[in-house]
């Protein structure tokens, strides 16, 4: 064995002795610690607002908040109604719409309800301007009267394509909500009431289907996805954990101890998160699974070594102490590198990734502590029996040895082939396309996805782009020049193939002008008189009922109006092209005062991946530098520490290249995968290089033999650990939330590729410049033991 007793070795030995001696105290202390920290779990809440994905200083969020302060908050619930006979304007359906429109006012925080029934239709009657609901008491209207209303609705640009489908087969009731945002119960209250109302309509009118969508339904889906994951993923992960440890360790006591360590680590991390006031979301929620996956490794390493020692004839306590001593360094370093990787998520532009990083980092720290204290204490207490190996079989991983010998013998072709493969994958990287479409964030287990698709297939789009078009002067929205440009912009927008609906103030002014001229269709155009336009607006505003005013369409000083554009389900790239196109049109065709920047959730999400990548570049840089530094220090070699960057970084780049080739599009989770997987895959490099260095320095082995030694001693452990990690992260792929699923699949791929890189590229790299003449065996291979 090693003659040099390092200071870390002394610390490790002292810890091992102390833990075993004071096992009961350690167990009680651990229980007390978990009870104390876990108590913070009471404060954990599930956030339910898509805005949590944007940091407080995200430029798109700030622009949107400014917009909302000028007009109104645009949280909404959209009821989509469809009758079995496909007719909206039948007495029955008309009555159902009217009933739901009236009842929707009872939804908590509703400030506005819009439907075809309460649409403020205006018409002339001599010198009278009548403004009233499009219809009242629909059940009592004749089919001819309803057909008349249908014609008006389909002819109305504010309705057609938004609240009534062009085929008049499906209709919407839009409820605008103004949440005080004081409590997380606000959203469930509103959604609960909306569901109750929808259920009531479906019961009273069995032939009518009501689906609930809108931004508030989306927000609710975030919470639902997190909870679905918590209820399905976490239990199945624990099942897998128990199975894996039972198979690897073949001991109930060892399995029990491992599960305890992991459960305690998770509870500690979640409890601390509660004390820190972190609100969970589907992304932060995955930290439970990530902690579990990563924490297994610590326990398994320690227990495998101990069981191995016991098989060799040592008693339990001696084996245990020896195992803690041997593994102390590796467990510590891998924990630190993983923590660095996860902490670097704080550079992300999306707060949920901060929470994922911080909760996971706390969990890993707790797992490190419990693996070195609670785990040995539990093992010391629990009965463990193993079969001793009699005559010692030297089945020293023949496969791994053969693999090592093959690579060292053919290191040049291996280097060339693996480099070509690596370069090929990396070169595919630029083809990756970022895409964040929030309907597709959810899989079909989440009700929102089906409802959103129902709405998009039958009624209207759900992706809104908002333009606050300024006139440049107070009261300027009545300026004929402004109105003309606004109308042209509206017309241009309607010509675009990706546009489903445009809501523009220009249409209201044209309709009023017609009304003022005895409903003469030829007067359906803009007025050229600024004062007249302002007076029309005053007249119209005086006629509108509570909750149906224009304050959400016109700024208070009448200097700007809002144009809301509903677009098809577009990819992020297409959204950005559309935004550029529309801004280009404004710049080419309107005065500078009208050059507005579009905003809204769709705009925010179309920049989220890019923002995250930009912000994570710093995070990655720091993580890479920090991890390289730790490797240089722990290997005590500048050249090897630097070389380790290759097996650490190349797999990540290859993973994205492979993804670009296989899938093509990736969402906002991608930016963070590099940092987290770096912290994880570096562990294997650490194990491999540590053994390589030990063979070179302590045994004076040459390079081929040092490589063989590393393969023989840690080859299987590294492979098994990679399989556990791949399994754990693949489980995330079954998440109902796409960002998590992609994160899981990408990390699993990175772990697999990293394993291959460690087995082929890394040894080939270590062999560069090696010539046979150098060989001088100080210790023959046969003389070596692990």
């Amino acid at each position, binding site marked *: 064995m090693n003659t040099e007793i390092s200071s870390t070795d002394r610390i490790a030995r002292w810890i091992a002795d102390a833990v075993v001696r004071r096992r009961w105290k350690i167990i009680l202390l651990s229980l007390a610690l978990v009870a104390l920290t876990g108590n913070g779990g009471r404060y954990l809440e599930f956030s339910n607002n898509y805005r949590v994905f944007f940091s407080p200083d995200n430029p798109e969020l700030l622009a949107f908040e400014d917009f909302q302060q000028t007009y109104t908050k645009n949280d909404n619930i959209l009821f989509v109604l469809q009758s079995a006979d496909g007719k909206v304007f039948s007495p029955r359906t008309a009555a159902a719409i009217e009933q739901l429109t009236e009842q929707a*006012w009872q939804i908590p925080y509703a400030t506005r309800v819009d439907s075809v029934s309460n649409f403020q239709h205006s018409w002339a009657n001599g010198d*009278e301007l009548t*403004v009233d609901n499009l219809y009242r008491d629909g059940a009592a209207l004749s089919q001819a009267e309803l057909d008349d209303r249908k014609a008006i609705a389909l002819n109305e640009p504010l309705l057609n394509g938004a609240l009534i489908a062009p085929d008049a087969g499906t209709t919407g009731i839009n409820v605008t909500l103004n949440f005080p945002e004081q409590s997380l119960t606000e959203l469930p209250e509103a959604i609960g009431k909306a569901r109750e109302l929808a259920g009531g309509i479906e019961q009273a009118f069995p032939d009518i289907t009501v689906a609930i969508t809108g931004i508030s339904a989306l927000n609710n889906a975030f919470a639902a996805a997190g909870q679905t994951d918590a209820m399905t993923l976490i239990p199945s992960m624990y099942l897998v954990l128990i199975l894996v440890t039972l198979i690897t360790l073949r001991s109930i006591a060892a399995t029990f101890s491992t599960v305890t360590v992991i459960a305690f680590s998770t509870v500690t991390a979640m409890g601390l998160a509660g004390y820190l006031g972190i609100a969970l979301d589907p992304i932060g929620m995955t930290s439970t699974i990530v902690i579990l996956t990563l924490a297994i490794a610590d326990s398994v390493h320690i227990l495998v070594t101990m069981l191995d020692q016991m098989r060799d004839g040592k008693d339990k306590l001696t084996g245990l102490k020896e195992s803690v001593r041997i593994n102390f360094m590796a467990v510590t370093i891998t924990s630190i590198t993983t923590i660095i990787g996860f902490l670097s998520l704080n550079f992300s532009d999306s707060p949920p990734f901060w929470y994922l990083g911080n909760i996971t980092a706390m969990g890993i720290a707790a797992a490190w502590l419990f693996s070195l204290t609670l785990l040995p204490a539990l093992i010391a207490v629990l009965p463990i029996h193993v079969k001793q190996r009699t005559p010692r079989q030297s089945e020293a991983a023949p496969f791994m040895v053969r693999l090592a010998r093959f690579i060292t013998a053919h290191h040049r072709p291996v280097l060339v082939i693996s480099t070509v493969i690596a370069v090929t994958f990396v070169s595919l990287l630029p083809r990756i396309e970022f895409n964040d479409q929030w309907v597709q964030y959810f899989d079909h287990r989440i009700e929102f996805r089906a409802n959103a698709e129902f709405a998009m297939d039958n009624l209207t789009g759900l992706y809104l782009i908002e333009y606050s078009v300024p006139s440049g002067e107070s009261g300027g929205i009545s300026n004929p020049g402004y109105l003309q440009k606004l109308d042209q912009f509206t017309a241009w927008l309607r010509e675009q193939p990706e546009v489903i609906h445009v809501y523009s103030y220009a249409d209201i002014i044209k309709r009023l002008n017609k009304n003022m001229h005895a409903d003469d269709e030829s007067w359906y155009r803009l007025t050229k008189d600024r004062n007249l336009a302002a*007076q029309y607006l005053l*007249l119209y505003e*005086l006629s*509108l009922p509570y909750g149906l005013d224009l*304050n959400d369409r016109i700024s*208070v000083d009448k200097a700007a109006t809002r144009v809301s554009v509903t677009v098809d389900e577009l990819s992020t790239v297409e959204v950005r092209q559309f935004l550029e196109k529309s801004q280009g049109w404004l710049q080419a065709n309107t005065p500078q005062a009208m050059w507005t920047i579009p905003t809204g959730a769709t705009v925010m999400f179309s920049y989220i991946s890019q923002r995250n990548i930009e912000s994570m570049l710093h995070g990655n840089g720091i993580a890479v530098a920090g991890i390289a530094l730790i490797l240089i220090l722990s290997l005590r070699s500048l050249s090897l520490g630097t070389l380790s960057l290759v097996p650490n970084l190349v797999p990540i780049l290859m993973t994205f290249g492979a993804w670009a080739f296989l899938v093509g599009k990736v969402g906002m989770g991608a930016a963070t995968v590099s940092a987290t997987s770096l912290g994880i895959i570096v562990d294997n490099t650490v194990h491999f290089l540590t053994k390589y260095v030990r063979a070179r320095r302590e045994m004076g082995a040459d390079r081929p033999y040092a490589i063989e030694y590393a393969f023989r001693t840690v080859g299987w452990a590294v492979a098994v650990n990679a399989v556990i990690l791949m399994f754990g992260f693949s489980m995330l792929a079954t998440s109902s939330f796409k960002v998590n699923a992609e994160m899981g699949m990408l990390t699993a791929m990175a772990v697999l590729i990293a394993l291959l890189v460690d087995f082929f590229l890394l040894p080939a790299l270590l062999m560069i410049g090696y010539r046979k003449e150098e060989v001088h065996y100080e210790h023959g291979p046969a003389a070596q033991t692990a």
Partner: protein
Amino acid sequence: MSMVLQHKLRKALNTGLLVVMSIASQAALSLSLEEQGFEIAAHSDRSDRGFSDSRVELKMILRNAAGKEATRKLTITTLEIPDESVGDKSLIIFHTPPDIDGTALLSHAQILEPDAQWLYLPSLKRTKRISSVNKSGPFVGSEFAFEDLTALELNKYDYKYLRSEPCGALQCDIVERYPLYQHSGYSKQIIWVDQDVYQIRKTEFYDRRGDLLKTLEMNEYRVYTDKFWRPHHFSMVNHQTGKSTELLYSDYNFGNDLNNRDFIKNVLKRTR
């Protein structure tokens, strides 16, 4: 009867009513809460009786949630209609912003039916009758509905006395009132009526769901001809949207010798 004598007589009557009221409130148990509430509102309404007509200049300051402002200037002329089953008549003339200068709104308030309203559009040189059952929307983009601006009409509501408590330096009776007009934008209002001169100091407006929507505070009360109290500063805050509106009133002119003929559709064209 001389004006002085008339005034004294009215004051005596008022004092008598006051005595009756205080006896009534001491015998509160004999009156139901609904009756008590009605009595307080009626007292407030009737304290204003006999003003005949008034004219006042008004500046509105509108603010959105971001604090951005816009102002409107207008003149309100009101004709008292003594019959409690009919509402007062009013004429509102807009001065600013300039593009609506000269636009005039004539209203004949009704109790349980939609008010009759006409708007004169100077650019069109035409008067349009506004026909809509529900005019509870924001008045010229402000946080006031038209119904919040006009004088208290006693019979527009049912009442219920809640409690009494200090309000600033004064003591107030707090009364809940429920709009009887089926298209009102509110489910209820709570008013604070001082016990000194029976003026409304504060009103809370509740939306159809019963949630607090807006709070109106009325300040800077001044008394005219020793009898008619008028607030000169209104502040309305919408709690749901964060928007607010302030009203700043100039001095009131009473006794302009106006009558019904000054409040008919045809006068609108001549308002300038």
